[in-house]
Each structure stands twice: as C-alpha cells, then as structure tokens.
C-alpha cells in the first residue's frame, strides 16, 4: 500500500543522504522524496512517498526514527491528511492546440506561467493522481518537458507534526 511519511530532521549536511541511504540499503521503495527547511532554520521537513506491506512500513518508520538526525516521524496515511504536488509542464502550443491547451489548463485549475510563440509552460498543483490525469488529458505528443516536485503532505486539523 502507498504511504506518505512525513518527518522533521536536523538541517545538517548529509542528513538527506542518511535517509536516502537507508532506503537503498534496506531495499525500500521511494516513489518521491521532497525536503526543504521549515520556519525554524535548524530543521527540515521531508515528505517521502513509499509503498510496502504493513511490516515493511512499520520497519521504515522505526528505521527512520533510529537515524540520529531524524527528530520525529509521522505516517500521514494513518489519518486525515492533505497531499499536494506541484508540476510544471512545457507543451508545444501552436495553431489549434494553443486554445485547447489553455482550455484544459483552466479545467484543471492550472495556470499558464510562461508563453512563447510555440510553447506554454503550465503550472498545476494537486494530488499526484490529478497531475497524472492532466498529463493523460492532453495530447502526449505535445509534451516537451515535465517537472514534478513529488508530494508534500500535512495532517488535517489538529494533527500536527512538531518537535
């Protein structure tokens, strides 16, 4: 099953490689991994999307907690949560396609953030599933480049991950 694991870790050189190394050394899947500092510059927040049996997910949580740089770990998929991913797509936009691509972007509540004679760059935010659907909805041959951040997640309401 797919899990979104969120964690706070010391914002230290090498901390990311400890997490990435743990996943490769123990053969765990990483679908995506995002990391950036928080409002507290000494700490980074990481979101990892992974999959595995209940036993594997339990081990992932425990092994992450064991890393000295990791402050706290939460499996967001254990409760209510929100998941968002940002995608930038550069498409070939000439002739009739220009109108069609703009229309599709509006339907998916995206925005065109860069325009040239022959291209659009579209910004789209949502769950990974929604971004997949957008890519399926437009003509595949028009896609020039796709950049995705991977999911970021947060618990709903009072479900808060902090020190």
């Amino acid at each position, binding site marked *: 099953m797919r899990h979104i694991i969120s964690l706070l870790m010391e914002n230290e050189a090498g901390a990311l490689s400890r997490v990435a190394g743990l996943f490769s050394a123990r053969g765990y899947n990483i679908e995506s991994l995002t990391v950036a500092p928080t409002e507290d510059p000494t700490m980074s927040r990481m979101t990892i999307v992974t999959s595995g049996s209940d*036993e594997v997910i339990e081990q992932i949580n425990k*092994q992450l907690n064991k890393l*000295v740089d990791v402050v706290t770990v939460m499996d967001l998929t254990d409760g209510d949560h929100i998941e968002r991913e940002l995608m930038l797509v550069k498409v070939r936009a000439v002739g009739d396609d220009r109108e069609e691509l703009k229309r599709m972007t509006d339907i998916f509540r995206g925005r065109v953030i860069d325009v040239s004679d022959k291209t659009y760059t579209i910004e789209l935010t949502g769950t990974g599933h929604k971004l997949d659907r957008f890519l399926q909805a437009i003509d595949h041959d028009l896609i020039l480049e796709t950049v995705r951040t991977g999911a970021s997640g947060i618990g709903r309401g009072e479900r808060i991950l902090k020190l």
Partner: protein
Amino acid sequence: MELTGAEITIRCLQEEGVEYVFGYPGGAVLFIYDELFKQEQVKHVLVRHEQAAVHAADGYARSTDKVGVALVTSGPGVTNAVTGIATAYMDSIPLVVISGQVPTSYIGEDAFQEVDTVGITRPCVKHNFLVKDVRDIASTLKKAFYLAKSGRPGPVLVDIPKDVSQQKTEFSYPATVSIRSYTPQAHGDIGQIKRAAQLLLEAKRPMVYAGGGVILSDAARQLTDLVRLLGAPCTNTLMGLGGYPASDRQSLGMLGMHGTYEANLGMQNCDVLLAVGARFDDRVIGNVSHFNSVPRKIIHIDIDPASISKRVKVDVPIVGDVAHVLADLLSVLNSSKQKPDAAALKEWWKQIDEWRGANSLAYKNSNEIIKPQFVIETLHRITHGDAFVTSDVGQHQMWAAQYYKFDQPRRWVNSGGLGTMGFGLPAAMGVQLAHPGAAVACVTGEGSIQMNIQELSTCKQYKLPIKIVALNNRYLGMVRQWQEFFHGNRYSHSYMDALPDFVKLAEAYGHVGILVEKPSDVEGALKEAFARKDDLVFLDFRTDPTENVYPMVPGGKGLSEVILAEDL
C-alpha cells in the same frame, strides 16, 4: 587560553577517561599525533594496519564496559578501518573512531589521500560527523562518546580535517549532552512488563533466549536470577555466550545453525518465548516461516524498537535497556502470588532432557589425529574456564563457542554479525591491554590468522602475552564443510596451499612457536603456553582436516531440520 583543534581532541579523550587509543599516523592526523606525543595520560598503541586498530579498540570495548577508541588518517587509513567499523556496527559495540581528513579547502578536489569518509562509513556507523569548525570539536566528541555508549551502542566516527586540527579556540568540555532528536528509552513500559510476567507464569513450556544485549547491558546477573526464578531453560546466542552460565543445569547452550539439539528444539517447541537482547537473525532461527509454523507467544525485550517484529511477529514488545527491564520484570514476578507451574515445568524438563540425551556435541576423539573439539575442551580445562577467548571466523569459532563453556559475560569476544576473518588477533590485543595479567586466548584457523598476521609485531612492541590457538586443518574449514554438504565435494579454492611455517613465523616476530601434531601433546603444549606468562605463544595445532561442525541446521532450513554428527 586558546588551544588547537588537535590539543582539544586529546583533552576530550582525557576528559572521557580514555586509557588507550589504537591507531596509525598519517599526514592528516599529524597535529593530533603531535599532541599525543606531548602527554602521557592517553596511551597510544601503534598497530600495523588500521583494520587492526579498530578491532583492537573493539576487543577492548567488548571485554570491558568502556568505549573503544581508534585514530586513523584520511583516505586509505579510513578505508582500511571500514571493515573494523562494520564489524563493530553489526555487533553493536561502542567505539569512537577519529579520522583525519584533508584540509577543508581541499575537500571535494580529489586531494591526496582524500575519501568521502562520512559517505563511505555512513551505512556502518551509528552516526558520524565531519567537523568543519574548530569550535565544534569538543561538543562533537562529547556527542560521539554519548551516542556510542547510550541506547543501542555502536561505532561513531568523527572526521577532523587537518586545518581544523590546527586552528585555535577556547576549550571547555561540555559537562552534559543532549540531542533533541535522540532519546533512548532505558525503562520498559510497566504495563507490558506485567503482561510479560503473566504470560511467563502461565507458561507450560517457557524458554529464555538471550543475546548480546544481555552482555552489552551488563545484565547477566538479572538474567540469571530471572531464569532461576522461572525454572525455565535458557539458551544463549553466539553473541550472548556468558550471559547465563553455560555450566548451569538450566543452560541449553548455544542455539542456531550450530546450536545444540536441545536449544533448537526448545526454541521450536516452547509455548512462551522470552527473547532478551536478541534479534531472531537468520543464523539463529533459520527459516522464518518454519519457525512461525508452530504457535507460541513471544515476549521481546530490546533497546532498539527496530529490532522488534523485524523478522518475527512479537506478542509482547518491551522497548528498554535489558538490565532495567529484567530488574522490573523480576520485581513484578517476586511480588506476584502466582508461581511458575511446577507440574508443567517438570514435564517440559523431561522432554528437554530427552533431547539432551541425543548428546549433540559428542564427537569421536582419536589417538592418531588431533580433533579440534578436543583442543578447545582442553583449553577450557587448563584455563579453568576463566580465560578471555577471542576468535576469528569459521569452524574454529563454532567449536570455541560450543566447547568453551562460558560462565561469565565479556569473556567471549568474536565477530558474530559481520563474520570478519582477521578479527581474533587484534581483538585479543585490546582484551589483553584491558586485562593485563589475564589469560587471553585467540582461537583461530590458519586462514583467518593470516588476515591480520602483521599484528604479531604490535604484540611484540607492547609485550602482549596472547596465546594463539590455531586449529590448523589446512582448509578454510567452514567453506570446505559447505562444499562437502552442498556442492558435491568440489573443494573449490578452500585448500590452504603453501602455508608458512607458523613456528618460524612466530619466532621471526620475536615470539614463541609450538607445533603440536599428536593428541597426546595437546595438553602439555597448552600448559606450557599458559605457563609462559610473559610470552606470546603461537600454538600450531595440526587438526583433522575432515572434521565438521555439528549439529548443523543448513541455511534456509528450520530449527528442527538439523543434521547431527551421527546422521552421516
């Protein structure tokens, strides 16, 4: 007053009460070595290879309850040390390894003797640090010692660039340390401990399975009290030997791939299993689904939550330091009105004694050729079971574990997890330095000993009267055994051709060598060796090349699918 990074490093070691540093100098650690030279409190032991420095620090740590310290230079110094670090990591041994690094301005330039030390060691350390600012050396070393020793122990590496060791700052050693992301739990949950006590009291066929955690936590006394109170059988893992006295009636000896018949069948057939500081690894329980095919309740005490329910689902997990949890469990049991089920225990012991009757460690002794088991039994007898025994890896290791009945913790020093050939001799150096005057035997083979033979020179320099008990069967015996059993007797490259004359080799290094070829000479040779209190003696026992280690649970098989000596 301002001190250099190098001075601070040595001052930190002094503050930590470090007695010995095992190391090898080189360019990146020259300033640190200069400061070592200027003081006498911290003694430095010059090894002949960095792997040996780490193994020696490891042997020192295993035979005491202290942190072992090694010091190596950058680049090859570090890469040579990696096997030692990984060995300590697999067995959860507290070490602080200090490595030199190229100057900060050179890092990343593929400078001379540069490697990414933090990157290379990351998967085999508990934690590591690269110190980029001289002001961080003291706090980092404080953290390193704390991390190494607390929680589940392990090796911690501190990488210090040469310029950082040269820069100056004010020195003050922190009195306390706190790491917000690291909070090991010493005491177990009392509710879980009560559940465990209840299960143990209701058990019809209880079994205690104790591992290296008992040794690391110095909990042999608590374990012994508990086993006696429960009236249950106790088996020890390879790492846990000495945690419960092997000569006691309730001891079933070692379990696992080469464990006794009664220990393995006890594990398989018990109804309540108390696992203490052990991790159900593949060499211990064999095939997981075979192990799980029999219902039993499992209580698991471990300091590391990640060790619990990793390979085997556990009914009552208790996270905490073994010594604390066992003490709490004992007091719950002592205050309970209920007593263990004496009638059920009687039945259980009847069954166990039946398994014991198989006498699975019996071997056929010979007047013609030296049997390796006989050497270990004789070693046990003439040292009164009181020696420190280190070993290398292979058949000799298993025979030492099976036939040297360890009654005390920290007497048995071997590489269990990583299985590092070449560990025995350097580890014995650390043990001997920690216990001057004590009898220290390194049980080894002619294959393993050659992996760190150069340390005979270190032993000479520091006058370490280790007794090397080499079971020389002219084969990489364990490899040969597997080839005999599973590869159609094709002994592919397991024969040790062109062996040196170990007696002359020992003499060349300034030691005493004794060749023993006849069973009738075994006892005399061992006695002579141990009588030479000041000499390192290399005993070259020419043992039966065809002897195998029994019992054996073949890889991937279940604990009851055992091969006994008589089966063949």
